[in-house]
């Protein structure tokens, strides 16, 4: 599904250069559920942004779904984001003056679906996250957990092959976090590849595989099967 080799990313601000990623290599197979962990500032978000074609990278190679993306123009990247990738952000990033229906509608609009198709997908997606009855509500009328579910519905509505979630539970209490996690697991069971950044070791453990990032590099893989045997060590991945 996704193959990164020796990716590097440098942020240059006036005087400082930050190597957000260096020699970053990672492969994710179709249908996998990968949890990315690592300390703050280690480059997790940068990795997700690059993987999700939201940002360019400076060196290395990246194949997404078998396609080399380094030479795509902005328009082509937008199309791929729209059709193949669903994003879930820590801060929800719903559009405040659109109601739930219209928020979920956003990626579908750019996809060029017919009105009927959009309508069907929006309903299904919102029902799946349990908000089918609140389609006319504005995001501000919902709790944080509900908002994140709307964001998930928005990510799902276009039936992407890959979902990128950047600390999707970071702003939620543990109960809500678990609900969101269950949703993601359901989605994954239906075949969608999921890459999730998280700080929560318990949630990370529920993924197939953990990837630990440190100083812009993958330092450790923890296969799901092995995780059960090495709990102590996983606890470090905060």
């Amino acid at each position, binding site marked *: 599904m996704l193959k990164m080799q020796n990716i590097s990313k440098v942020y240059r601000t006036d005087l400082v250069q930050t190597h957000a990623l260096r020699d970053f290599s990672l492969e994710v197979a179709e249908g996998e559920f990968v949890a990315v962990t690592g300390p703050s500032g280690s480059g997790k*978000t940068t990795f997700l*942004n690059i993987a*999700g074609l*939201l*940002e360019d990278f400076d060196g290395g190679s990246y194949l997404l779904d078998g396609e080399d993306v380094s030479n795509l123009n*902005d*328009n082509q990247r*937008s*199309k791929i*984001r*729209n*059709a193949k990738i669903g*994003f879930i*952000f*820590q*801060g*929800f*990033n*719903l*559009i*405040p*003056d*659109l109601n739930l229906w219209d928020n979920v509608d*956003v*990626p579908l*609009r*750019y*996809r060029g679906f017919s009105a009927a198709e959009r309508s069907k997908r929006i309903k299904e997606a919102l029902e799946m996250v349990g908000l089918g009855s609140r389609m006319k509500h504005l995001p501000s009328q919902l709790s944080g957990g509900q908002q994140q579910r709307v964001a998930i519905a*928005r990510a799902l509505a*276009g039936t992407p092959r890959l979902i990128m979630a950047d600390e999707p539970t970071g*702003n939620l209490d543990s109960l809500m976090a678990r609900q969101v996690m269950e949703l993601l697991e359901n989605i994954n069971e239906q075949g969608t590849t999921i890459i999730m950044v998280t700080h929560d070791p318990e949630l990370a453990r529920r993924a197939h595989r953990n990837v630990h990032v440190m100083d812009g590099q993958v330092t450790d893989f923890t296969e799901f099967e092995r995780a059960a045997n090495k709990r102590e060590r996983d606890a470090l991945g905060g």
Partner: protein
Amino acid sequence: MFAYYLRLALLSIRRNPVLSGLMMAAIAVGIGAFMTMLSVHHFMSGNPIWWKNDVLYAVGVDTWNPNETYYQSRPELPPQQLTYRDAKALQASDIPTYKAYMFNVVGVFQPENEEIAPFIERGRMTFNDFFAMFDVPFEYGGAWGEQADRRDEFVVVLSREINDKLFGGENSVGKRVVIDGREFMVTGVLKEWHPAPKFYDVTTGAFQEPEAFYLPAQLYETLQPDRSGNTNCWKPENLDSFQAFNNSECTWIQYWVQLDTREQQQRYADFLHAYLQEQASVGRSARPDQYLMATPEEWLEINEVVADDNRVLVGLSFLFLIVCLLNTVGLLLAKFLGRAGDISVRRALGASRLDIFRQQLIECGFIGLLGGIAGLGLAGVGLMVVRKMYRFEGSSMMDGEMILVAFITAVLASIAAGLWPAWQICRVPPAGYLKTQ
């Protein structure tokens, strides 16, 4: 997608009522000022007989002062009007399809109805051809018969307004009216007719209302009416009687002909040239090469119907519109910057730069449209003021064409104002403004 963008524009306006309101106000004020001036200009520079512009000609012949041309700045032009002698001589030519000299008079109407006090009106003495030549529309009846142009017949054509006043708007053809103590029979009543500028006689104000009544010029010597137009004399001569004045070199008559073919036009030019040569040969002051055949458009230009001031004001108001637009650019930048988060999300979810650019421009156009509507209202008020100031009467100055121009200007202007801000905003990197909290 257009409808979707329009809905987004509405939402965005609702979300930012203050900024959006300021933008609309800026556009409205700019469009209001610009459209006011442009409408005045459009009104002044109109050609109310454009469909006959290639066949109608104002005629001038130069029998002016041998030592001095009529116009100092344009010595090649003959005087604006004709002498009575010249007008009568030109009227004898049978080359034109239609031909008519004409001038302003005043007359007092004494209505039969004793309740209505006598009142003064301006009238025009001319020929039967006047009405056909200028496509003057009739409500009732028509022009007087041709014979009234050759021998005295006391007949009159009334304007619609005066017919309303005298006969309550009824068909008055065949009825009698008393003007200056004499009875005239009505042969026709005009429809509403307000050519602006009043191209056929600009001497007493190019935007004056047309006359209230029309009499055959044939009656001039019989009636000896009070003339109310512009009279210009150069020659020291005794003018102490009606006869003396008519034989003088004073110019006071407008002359128009219709020449349908090139051949007619050429022959008429030759005729004017020959006429002037003949006048010079009998010892009259005449410049044989100085005759004029001006189309209505040329005539309005020669007579500087559109004041230079007006052109300057159009320019200034356009600059003002630009200042308003620069304000709008600033406001739009502010508004779009405030929306960077949303745009970032849309970009992340798959909107291309072009999608975002379009969305912003449609919003600008929409704001421009609303601003344009308000601007039209302001222009309406502005025109009312202008009308009072310049005393333009009759026809409305804001026609459909101008309203269309106003909307197009408003929308294009605000789209233009939006180009830079929209370009800025669509370059927002997709990941740049995503909220992390």
